[in-house]
């Protein structure tokens, strides 16, 4: 009996390995091994002209010097890196909530039983995600140019549109400026060599264009994820809620969204990872201009490595961003997890209360 079972499992085991071996080899060679190589390069002073694994003066091991130069050493590398981190932090802060909320809203609309032409709307909303990001970025360059369609539309409304791509003023700076604050004394403290006032600048006007672009492009993909999750929700819970007489807004807040937690978690995680790695749009729409306010760590890593031959520093930046993403994802997972339930999809509407009251008596629902 036992032998036959292990035989079956053994054969299935081999079949499993045979099927996954090609993918393991490909992922290993093209993903895992280069990452390990890059980790090594980030600890050397390699300038791109000799074998980085051969040692010698042009590829010498320097330990954590590239990392400390990014954080502790006063200089252009640190100020560029800190500015790129600040820019991307605001970019993430605006894009992730906006794209999550917009995609959820679109999914709710498309999921509506009474909506006609559902597949048309699904296609229309998903279309921007399928189009090449370079093509969309180029179109946005024309749309938001000084005399482009957006400024023309604003002119009809009587607003004098800004020079989108050459305006480096930060949004928060402009807002605080309304209250008369301009580089005030309380914001002079320095964090990693950058004044607090600079850290609070918010996304620049040029960065706002990229934020709009990112939200418009990625909502489609996340809308599909929410749609799939919505269609998986049990109809009985909805009907029970309607019978109990909740308003649509209450239903959304207390029933639908708690049940969408796994999809929400997926969308926010993907959003966080994707936004910290933004590159294509920066490359097409300004390469960091104006005044470095659209610079992101991914693009800075590219220019440091390929333009200035500072491969060690570029690789170090990439790993710092990797750590930031991992930390953020872990933190997000931590706040979204639910200690009280045993890991399964939580049924709202008193299920949690039921369990809390039954735990004391030892009964299970």
């Amino acid at each position, binding site marked *: 009996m036992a032998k036959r079972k292990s035989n079956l499992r053994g054969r299935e085991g081999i079949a499993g390995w045979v099927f996954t071996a090609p993918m393991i080899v490909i992922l290993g060679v093209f993903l895992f091994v280069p990452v390990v190589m890059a980790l090594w390069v980030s600890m050397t002073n390699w*300038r*791109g002209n000799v074998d980085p694994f051969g040692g010698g003066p042009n590829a010498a091991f320097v330990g954590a010097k590239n990392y400390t130069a990014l954080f502790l050493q006063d200089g*252009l590398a640190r100020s560029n890196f800190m500015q790129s981190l600040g820019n991307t932090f605001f970019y993430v802060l605006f894009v992730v909530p906006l794209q999550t909320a917009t995609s959820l809203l679109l999914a709710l609309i498309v999921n509506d039983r009474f909506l006609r032409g559902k597949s048309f709307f699904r296609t229309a909303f998903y279309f921007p995600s399928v189009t090449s990001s370079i093509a969309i970025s180029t179109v946005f360059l024309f749309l938001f140019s000084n005399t482009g369609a957006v400024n023309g539309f604003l002119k009809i409304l009587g607003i004098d549109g800004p020079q989108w*791509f*050459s305006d480096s003023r930060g949004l928060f700076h402009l807002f605080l400026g309304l209250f008369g604050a301009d580089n005030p004394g309380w914001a002079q403290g320095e964090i990693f060599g950058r004044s607090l006032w600079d850290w609070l600048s918010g996304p620049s006007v040029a960065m706002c264009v990229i934020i709009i672009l990112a939200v418009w492009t990625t909502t489609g993909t996340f809308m599909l994820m929410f749609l799939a999750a919505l269609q998986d929700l049990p109809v009985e819970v909805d009907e029970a809620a309607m019978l109990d007489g909740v308003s649509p807004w209450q239903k959304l807040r207390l029933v639908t969204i708690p049940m969408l937690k796994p999809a929400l978690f997926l969308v926010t995680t993907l959003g966080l990872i994707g936004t910290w790695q933004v590159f294509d749009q920066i490359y097409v729409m300004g390469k960091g201009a104006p005044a470095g306010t659209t610079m992101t760590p991914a693009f800075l890593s590219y220019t440091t490595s390929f333009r200035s031959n500072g491969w060690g520093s570029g690789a170090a930046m990439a790993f710092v961003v990797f750590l930031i993403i991992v930390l953020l994802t872990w933190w997000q997972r931590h706040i979204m997890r639910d200690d009280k339930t045993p890991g399964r999809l939580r049924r709202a509407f008193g299920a949690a209360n039921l369990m809390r009251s039954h735990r004391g008596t030892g009964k299970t629902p």
Partner: protein
Amino acid sequence: MRSRKTRHATVALTLGAVGALVLSACGGGGSSFGGATKSQAAGPAKLTIMIGSSGDAETNAVKAAADAWAKKSGNTAEVIVASDLGQQLGQGFAGGTPPDLFYADASRIGDFAKAGNLFAYGDQVQGENFLPTLVKTFTYDGKLQCAPKDYSTLALVINTAMWTAAGLTDADIPKDWAGLESAAKKLTKGKVTGLVIGNDINRGGAFMKQAGGWVVSDDGKTMTADSPENLAGLQEIQKMMKAGSLKFNTDTSPAAGWGGEAFGKGIGAMTIEGNWIKGALTKDYPNIKAKIVELPAGPAGKGTLMFSNCWGIAAKSAHQAQAVDLVKFLTSVDQQLAFTKAFGPMPSTEAGIAKFKTDYPDDAAFAAGGDYGQGPVNLPGFDPVMAAFNSKLATLGKGGDPKAMLAELQKNGTAAIAAG
């Protein structure tokens, strides 16, 4: 029995997969990374030339020259047009298989030389008599790293129709800053701005030079960015911006991609551009008639900027001797004048430029710039420093502070020189 066999098979398969991984990762890498340069002993050499072309005219001209040399010397030379020269060169250097001959921009000489990518053959081409200003631009660490292939300078390009319509004559052609201010003011009317220039140091730097300052000292060992002369140059630009007679190409309405586009579209009545504007005007804006004059002199005299590429030979090239021979062919007077005819830049040798001055009298202003032009900063590690300065300089018309910009350039540049 069978379970042990399947267990063994599983282990063997796992080890095999891991082994394949390790082998495929390590196997390919070792052989292609170069050790010492092996020069080809005998037989015709196959050279690769990588260029960053400005268009079909340039590509065809270089190909024709390469074929002519190939026929003469019995070797072959293949011309590769790079879509992103900087990136492809970087790949070539890192991978150990760079092209034998390539365009090297003056601003990258320090980076390439420091990384050991260049074969400094300047001593072998001393007889060609290159312009002294060009030799200075391409000298790093006391050695001429490569032979300058041509050069362009900046000059003032004037829209003759707008000029005469504003009632200006030849006597009003600006010879100094005051003349430039008044001419630009007279040309600014309605949507047209008197002078539209590019928004980085490659145009604004001309004003700094005219005021008597520059980013680094002549020997390239000290930063001179934070000087009153440079400040005077930038303040002159700001003064004209406040008067409304000067705009950066990104600040015009509609914004232009570069000064030449603003000039061609009639957004700017004058612009400061180099030799390439002639080709651009003929191709894209044939209806505009332009007059080219030397840039006005500043408080310290005439000043303009020079842009040049050289023929870089890779240190890892296996055909260095043949490459030097090819360079000598390409920098001969006839060959350089053929390039000039095809796509416009000026010859880099004294003999060449003398013939250029007689053949192309309309371009006298560009040619004159070769005597007092300033090449770009060629020190290693300056790419991010200049990029940071350029991005700040672009805000000059929106309340940027030139003193702060120059102070930051001084700080970053000093750090870069210390590191390099």
